[in-house]
């Protein structure tokens, strides 16, 4: 009877414990702020007061639990838990950087993983590599002086060149990276000048003198050479922990020759690789895939070889079934998870294209599964790109989403459309996928997004971040039905004095140039509407492959002569057959009173590189005029260094030169043409009565011989190919014998034998 009005002891306590279980678990296990995590990080993140405070917190939690069990009351335990939790504020006290912990991360942002890292002859590990300052100094002992460079690539000394050592490539490069951060504190500190801010020899060589740590990088047993500065990356941190992110700037010395040998074998097999070739390529795929991909982009006959390698590597048969697609996708996603990144182009990106093209249903299935993977508490995204590649990173298992996002962006599987629209409604970063579908709903969706971005209110600083974000989104959307809306949005919303918006606008225009290179309307749009400076517009237009580029280039050049220089610079690097009239215009302008100044070297180079009927006709026209015009042209051609066998058609015209001065110039041009006809003409003039001409011919014939000898030496023999592919020689054995350099106290000089 007396128990009638009393609760069941154990039942109520069990119920209260289950109800408060999340509070206890959260207080103990929450990432970053939970007691267990704080004990692990302790002094590293929080300072010396952290651990005692955590013990007080734990005592509070234990007291709350005991009260809950004994008294079955909830109020006081709740108060105790929250009060204990707020002690974390005191555990976060920064003690002025006295206990600064520095961790170095090498290669986390790189395209290729697995590079060997050496410092002062000590092997530190493979990238991506993480090492603390203490571990580094324990493993690696300092060197008293700059080391011998087993291999070094440096240009010959020239008068007035004060960046020769800066541009050189070294076996060992200075790596006093912790030194830079020694004076770090929460307010910036007193740091030494970093190596990546040094741009000439005058400042670089003293750095070498004082450097105590030197690093070297290898990949797959091949030597890497590095420039002395240019470690890209940065640093970040919180509490007492500073993380330095360094991406090494090295290149593999033998990769060009290695690729040429491998390509030679492929050519001999008519681009149908055998198993030996595939195995060798697979071993060095990190180094060779990029060059092969680039080669295949310009030479379609190499496409089957690329295809064969990827199929062999990922076990993709000629006809892909749904089962093959699943198996290949599993392999690709596992690789992405192992390396923490997805690179385009790479064997994985090509593999994804091969298997997903005909299986949108499997792609949709994998996409849905991958997007159910929960994100980590501290997940991060990143992308590192250059002209040749893009490396996407994502932390944790969500990296498996990257190859699928790439495939969905390419193939737009219809099964995923509704889901993508829903995902875009929750998070606008998925809008790029939905907007690329060729459907009227996508047009409506993206227009809605743009109108929201236009009307978004500015923040307290008067900035509308939504505009920059929207332009970034426009870069990724390539739906022809949306192109006019997008271009109109960019031209109306971007620009002005905000540098950030201009950067986005430039990226947008570059994306259009890449995607719509031959769009006839694009040159006019860039000229009239692109929110860029005139010089930038001229550069962009010069890259387009459309006959409509002439008028905009002419107009911009007439408004600002510097635009002409910018356009010519681009045309020199990337000859554009649609720009031949502009080149002719520019030549006429430079030789006119209006443009009477030094002719841009880029113009001559660009004209000589471009072999179109108009350019030939123009050169012939000036040649036939004779007199000062012809002499001026000849002198311009002689004063620049080039080598273009396609100018062989000039040889008969050079042969017709009778004036001795002009013939002398002609002699200088023949080696630059370098064909058999040019050599034959030189030999014919070897006995010219004019001593100057005969002397010049003799000298140039010697150069011809030297060039031929070098070409013969560089010719790849079948034995070399066989030795390399069978593994009897390594790629580094293809390199010329190395000239070692030693430090003479002030600079590096060649080692005397």
């Amino acid at each position, binding site marked *: 009877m007396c*128990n009638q009005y009393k609760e069941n002891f154990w039942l109520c306590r*069990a*119920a209260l414990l*289950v*109800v*408060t279980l999340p509070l206890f678990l959260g207080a103990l296990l929450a990432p970053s702020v939970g007691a267990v995590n704080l004990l692990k990080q302790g002094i590293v993140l929080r300072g010396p007061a952290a651990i005692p405070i955590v013990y007080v917190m734990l005592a509070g939690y234990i007291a709350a639990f005991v009260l809950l069990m004994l008294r079955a009351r909830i109020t006081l335990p709740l108060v105790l838990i929250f009060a204990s939790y707020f002690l974390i504020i005191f555990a976060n006290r920064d003690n002025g950087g006295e206990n600064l912990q520095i961790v170095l991360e090498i290669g986390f942002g790189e395209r290729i993983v697995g590079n060997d890292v050496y410092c002062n002859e000590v092997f530190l590990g493979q990238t991506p590599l993480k090492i603390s300052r203490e571990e580094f100094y324990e493993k690696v002992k300092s060197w008293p002086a700059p080391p011998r460079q087993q291999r070094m690539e440096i240009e010959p000394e020239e008068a007035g060149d004060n960046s020769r050592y800066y541009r050189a490539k070294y076996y060992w490069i200075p790596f006093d990276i912790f030194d830079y951060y020694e004076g770090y504190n929460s307010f910036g500190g007193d740091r030494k000048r970093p190596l990546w801010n040094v741009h000439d020899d005058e400042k670089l060589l003293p750095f070498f003198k004082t450097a105590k740590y030197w690093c070297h990088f290898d990949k797959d047993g091949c030597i890497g050479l590095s420039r002395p500065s240019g470690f890209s990356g940065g640093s970040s941190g919180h509490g007492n922990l500073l993380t330095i992110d360094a991406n090494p700037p090295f290149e593999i010395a033998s990769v060009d020759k290695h690729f040429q040998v491998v390509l030679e074998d492929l050519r001999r097999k008519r681009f149908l690789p055998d198993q030996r070739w595939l195995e060798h390529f697979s071993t060095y795929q990190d180094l060779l895939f990029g060059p092969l991909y680039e080669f295949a982009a310009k030479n379609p006959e190499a496409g089957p070889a690329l295809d064969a390698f990827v199929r062999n590597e990922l076990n993709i048969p000629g006809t892909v079934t749904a089962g093959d697609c699943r198996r290949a996708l599993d392999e690709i996603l596992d690789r992405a998870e192992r390396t923490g990144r997805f690179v385009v182009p790479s064997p994985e990106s090509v593999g994804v294209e091969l298997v997903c093209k005909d299986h949108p249903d499997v792609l949709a299935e994998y996409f849905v599964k991958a997007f159910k993977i929960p994100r980590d508490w501290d997940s991060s995204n990143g992308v590192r790109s250059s002209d040749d590649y893009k490396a996407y990173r994502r932390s944790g298992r969500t990296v498996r989403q990257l190859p699928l996002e790439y495939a969905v962006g390419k193939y737009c599987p219809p099964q995923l459309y*509704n889901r993508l629209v829903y995902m875009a*409604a929750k998070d606008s970063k998925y809008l790029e996928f939905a907007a690329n579908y060729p459907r009227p709903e996508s047009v409506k969706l993206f227009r809605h997004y743009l109108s929201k971005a236009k009307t978004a209110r500015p923040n307290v600083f008067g900035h509308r971040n939504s505009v920059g974000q929207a332009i970034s989104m426009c870069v990724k959307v390539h739906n022809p039905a949306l192109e006019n809306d997008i271009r109109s949005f960019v031209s109306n919303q971007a620009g002005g004095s905000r540098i950030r918006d201009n950067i986005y606008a430039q990226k947008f225009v570059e994306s259009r140039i890449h995607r719509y290179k031959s769009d006839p309307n694009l040159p006019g749009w860039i000229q009239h509407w692109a929110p860029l400076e005139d010089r930038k517009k001229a550069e962009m237009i010069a890259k387009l492959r459309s006959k409509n580029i002439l008028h905009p280039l002419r107009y911009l050049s007439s408004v600002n002569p510097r635009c002409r220089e910018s356009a010519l610079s681009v045309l020199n690097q990337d000859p554009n057959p649609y720009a031949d009239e502009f080149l002719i215009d520019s030549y006429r302008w430079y030789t006119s009173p209006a443009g009477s100044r030094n002719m841009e070297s880029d113009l001559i180079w660009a004209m000589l590189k471009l072999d179109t009927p108009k350019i030939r006709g123009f050169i012939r026209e000036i040649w036939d005029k004779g007199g000062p015009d012809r002499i001026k042209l000849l002198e311009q051609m002689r004063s620049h260094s080039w080598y273009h066998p396609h100018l062989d058609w000039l040889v008969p015209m050079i042969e017709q030169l009778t004036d001795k001065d002009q013939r002398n110039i002609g002699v200088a041009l023949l080696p630059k043409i370098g064909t058999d006809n040019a050599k034959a003409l030189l030999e014919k003039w070897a006995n010219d009565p004019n001593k100057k001409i005969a002397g010049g011919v003799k000298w140039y014939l010697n150069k011809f011989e030297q060039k031929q000898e070098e070409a013969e030496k560089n010719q790849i023999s079948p034995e070399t190919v066989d030795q390399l592919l069978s593994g009897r020689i390594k790629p580094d054995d293809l390199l010329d014998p190395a000239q070692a350099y030693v430090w003479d106290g002030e600079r590096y000089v060649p080692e005397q034998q």
Partner: protein
Amino acid sequence: MNWQMIKLDLRKVALGYFMFLTAFLAYVLFWPKPLKAADPFAMAGGIGLGVFLALRIFIDSRSTEAFIFSRPVSRGRFFRQRWLLGLFLQVAALAFIALLLSIGARCWIHSGGPYHPMVKWYELNILWPIAISAPLVYSMTVFFMLRNRLLRKQTQNSARGKIVLLAPVGILAVCISFSLFVSHVPFVWIASGHAMLFYGILLVALTTWASRDCFTKMEVRS
């Protein structure tokens, strides 16, 4: 089943329940953005519904309490009946929202918008926060309310006890945070869905069992 007692309880909750349904209807039909699982308004609505049903069903006026408890129905059966009624009303609310979304009423209203009808079936995710929060809060509120009455030796339920209301709501907020935390912690991500389901069932089961214990032992003025 004692239909008279069920009708009595239904009469108590009718007006408020109707207002909740109206609020859900208005929100589900007219909210301009696509409905999603992580919806704070839906969660608040579910919490409100759970608290409302718990308070209205399990609190009787002085005049009726003595009469109801004098009926020839065991306390255990009485509790079960009331508890299941509350649960049924929550399920009915969920079914009502699901029906609204399934017949395309929202798509028709927002046909001029950019997201419909593509997101029609995905918007059913709005049911999740309501389905999770309402039963959890309902069973916790019943537990705290009945236990409070038993501990204070009260002969009448009091709707004014702020601790009764705040404790389950506050703790539910922690439960939701826990669910987010658990689903994102890497080492438990595989089991997070199952862990959440197990925890939810355990919580409802234990609090309901303890509530029943309190209900059978509490004093009622005769």
